[in-house]
């Protein structure tokens, strides 16, 4: 077993995960559940019913003040002005070289008050980045990561499960909308129609101390909806079937939004923002690598950091993420290759001394069927 030099952080639910018999492992400095019953059964539960995830490791920052919008316009790529209170948007922070500091969800809580939800692995880096660039603006930053727990309820039956929990029916929230609610004695609960699975559902932000009672209440109702607690393993296979980027794999300080296929996030006309010049330059000159989707044509699974080679064995790119797809029952992968690569070109992934054929395809891998 690997020795951990830094003590691992724990979410408020760690004892519950262990009591449920979860396979635990270190992830982004947190001691997290990887799976309970099994990655594939949890994955299929999300696709066909519902899954309940502890995502409390995610970081949360509150940005407020009269110039909060101006500040966020400057540090993120999407258009904050388009974001109404009660809505969230997927966005990125770029560095001055055009690389990606992080990808995040931005919630407009009030006119001049926002919540940023960032990757656990980047909490410190993002916090420093925001601090560093906030001085010209009249804004206040607050790191509330340890005060907020996040439980995701994802899947086609997530809405029913939540209704059962609330004891009353409610209109399904439209994607990227959120409301404040009270669940039992727990408030405030931010119910957000967002997620990272491609199967719909909600993310519930709650005070950290209330996480165990909300989790247990959800699990009490889970059985009636064939819902399962689901770990980070399924979270990863689900996002990969959709082709969603994972920071550290498809996005890094060196990989730009353009390269990762996220040009739609960049709103060029909104005014100045960090990374604009570098990204404009990249757009003009053309990117050198582009995120692409692959099937592997044998049973061998392409894994992160394997090389992508051509028929002569020359390296043309690399795999950024790969897994067996639980829905497709075949290996799938994301990777970077030059945009000039012809669609039909024979490509392989190199694993040790052997190579195995890949086939380029379009995203998402998941087409709505998960037997």
């Amino acid at each position, binding site marked *: *077993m690997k020795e951990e030099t830094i003590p691992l952080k724990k979410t408020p639910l760690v004892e519950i995960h262990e009591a449920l018999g979860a*396979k635990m492992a270190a992830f982004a400095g947190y001691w997290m559940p*990887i*799976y309970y019953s*099994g*990655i*594939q059964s949890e994955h299929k539960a999300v696709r066909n019913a519902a899954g309940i995830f502890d995502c409390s490791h995610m970081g949360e920052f509150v940005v407020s003040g009269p110039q909060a919008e101006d500040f966020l316009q400057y540090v993120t790529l999407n258009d904050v002005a388009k974001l109404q209170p009660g809505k969230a948007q997927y966005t990125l922070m770029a560095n001055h070289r055009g690389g990606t500091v992080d990808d995040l969800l931005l919630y407009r809580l009030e006119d001049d008050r926002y919540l940023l939800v960032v990757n656990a692995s980047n909490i410190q880096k993002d916090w420093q980045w925001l601090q560093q660039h906030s001085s010209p603006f009249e804004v206040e930053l607050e790191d509330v990561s340890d005060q907020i727990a996040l439980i995701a309820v994802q899947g086609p039956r997530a809405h029913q499960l939540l209704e059962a929990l609330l004891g009353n029916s409610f209109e399904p929230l439209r994607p990227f909308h959120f409301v404040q609610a009270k669940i039992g004695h727990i408030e405030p609960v931010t119910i957000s129609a967002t997620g990272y699975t491609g199967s719909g559902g909600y993310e519930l932000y709650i005070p950290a101390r209330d996480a165990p009672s909300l989790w247990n209440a959800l699990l009490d109702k889970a059985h009636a909806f064939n819902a399962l607690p689901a770990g980070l*393993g399924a979270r*990863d*296979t689900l996002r990969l079937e959709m082709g969603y980027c994972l920071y550290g794999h498809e996005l890094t300080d060196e990989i730009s939004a353009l390269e990762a296929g996220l040009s739609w996030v960049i709103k060029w006309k909104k005014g100045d923002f960090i990374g604009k010049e570098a990204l404009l330059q990249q757009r003009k000159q053309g990117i050198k690598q582009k995120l692409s989707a692959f099937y592997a044509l044998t*049973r*061998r*699974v392409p*894994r992160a950091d394997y090389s992508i080679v051509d028929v002569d064995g020359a390296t043309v790119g690399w795999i950024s993420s790969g*897994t*067996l797809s*639980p829905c497709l029952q075949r290996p799938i992968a994301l990777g970077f290759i030059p945009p000039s690569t012809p669609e039909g070109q024979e490509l392989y992934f190199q*694993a040790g001394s052997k190579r195995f054929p890949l086939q380029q395809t379009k995203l998402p891998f998941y087409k709505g069927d998960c037997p």
Partner: protein
Amino acid sequence: MQIPQELKYTKNHEWIKVLDDGQAIVGITDFAQSELGEIVYVEVETVGEELNKDEVFGLVEAVKTTSDLYMPVSGKVLELNSAIDENEGGNPGLINEDPYGKGWIIKIAITHPEELEELLSADEYKALIE
């Protein structure tokens, strides 16, 4: 976590069970299968080959990871357990369900029996993973 007393173990999380006829069967431990998660494919292309202790004899693909399999002692690989071989209609998931029983991986003919002495006992292996 099951660690049967009668087996010998490696630091790479294989177990070996010596049979009466000098042959042995090899698999991965309960700890290993739990670390890997659901195993979806086993590849052993070394049947018929003589391999040294610690040489790779195959690999397992789990949903999230790929892991090499190492010879616990030197020997000739005699067969891959067809019950876990997808190419034979087998179910690799047996390694998860029954890692010391139906989920054994290969049968070998031991060529250097003295190497068995270097392997870990159940108690030593238990200490390793704790």
